[in-house]
């Protein structure tokens, strides 16, 4: 299986604080990676660097052989935990925007997803609740046939029913050509989607491996393993 993502000695600092500390890992095509860690462990920063929104201080990251730049941005779909859309837009303006800038955007799929999430196209973003905006952003992201999906807390701020829908959407979006990195606090809700797991603490990788192997070798769910690992550390 081909490596879709190769990260080598990636470091990112904010002033004197090291957010991502000499991180190296690879992700094969067709795999889903769970990125876990407490607040401030560097998960969001790592995702932002891979999305090209932040620039690393040291190290490299390559997506399908290209280092992070304009070309990889066309192959990467980043779901941030902050709403990046212009609030003056309506839902169909946002769709048009995505369709214009991303060649891999699938309008038909977007309509299906919006339907599934029960969102209407005429709604003004200004008038939408936080949960609705998150579902919208999710629909826009998943309507792209990106090679690498970077999801930062995709389940945060939505009700349990919506969470289930989001997990279902993640599984339906899965394809052998693409890979997904999911960072989430709600490990229990989403751990069944993981192929691999990476746990970060203060910017460093403290645990990594195949999800199923971790379950059988520790005899714990990934959620419990997370709790156990970080209880010992913190």
């Amino acid at each position, binding site marked *: 299986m081909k490596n879709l993502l190769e990260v080598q000695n990636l470091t990112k600092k904010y002033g004197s604080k090291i957010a991502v500390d000499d991180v190296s890992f690879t992700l094969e095509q067709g795999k889903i990676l769970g990125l876990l860690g407490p607040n401030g462990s560097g998960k969001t920063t790592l995702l932002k660097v891979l999305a090209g929104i932040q620039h690393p201080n040291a190290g490299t990251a390559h997506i399908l052989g290209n280092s992070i730049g304009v070309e990889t941005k066309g192959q990467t779909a980043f779901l941030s935990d902050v709403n990046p859309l212009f609030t003056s837009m309506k839902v169909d303006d946002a769709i048009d925007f995505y369709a214009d800038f991303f060649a891999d955007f699938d309008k038909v799929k977007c309509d299906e997803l919006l339907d599934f999430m029960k969102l209407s196209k005429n709604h003004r973003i200004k008038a939408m609740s936080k949960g609705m905006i998150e579902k919208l952003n999710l629909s826009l992201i998943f309507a792209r046939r990106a090679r690498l999906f970077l999801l930062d807390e995709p389940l945060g701020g939505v009700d349990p029913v919506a969470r289930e829908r989001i997990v*279902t959407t993640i599984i339906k979006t899965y394809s052998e050509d693409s890979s997904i990195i999911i960072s989430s606090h709600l490990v229990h809700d989403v751990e069944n989607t993981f192929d691999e797991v990476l746990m970060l603490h203060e910017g460093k990788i403290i645990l990594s491996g195949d999800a199923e192997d971790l379950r*059988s070798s520790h005899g714990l769910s990934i959620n419990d393993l997370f709790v156990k690992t970080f209880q010992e550390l913190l």
Partner: protein
Amino acid sequence: MQFTGSIPIYEQIMRYIKKEIITGELNGEDKIPSVRDLADRLSVNPNTVSRAYQELEREGLTETRRGMGTYIVGDKTMKDRIKKELSQDLVLDFIEEMKASGFTAEEIIGFVSERLEKETL
């Protein structure tokens, strides 16, 4: 289907299919859902389902026919074989758990007989 997080999910999927074979829900020559379908239905990673299917095939319980899908092998002795394996797994899990809770072997046998008698009444 609810999954326990502490046991690999692919193993749980395999057990589920084996149970269906024992209870007669799934018989020889029956087609099981595609990897994609089952993954969607169970909300698990398709690779996990794939792994379960591969293991089932390795154990001789299923076979994949090109272009058609995955089928349960129509072997009569298979059902008995699985029954025996599964029963051993279940009994082992049960005994381990009971022992961990502090019960002796005699107590365990006693409780089991008592319970089964009540059920036949």
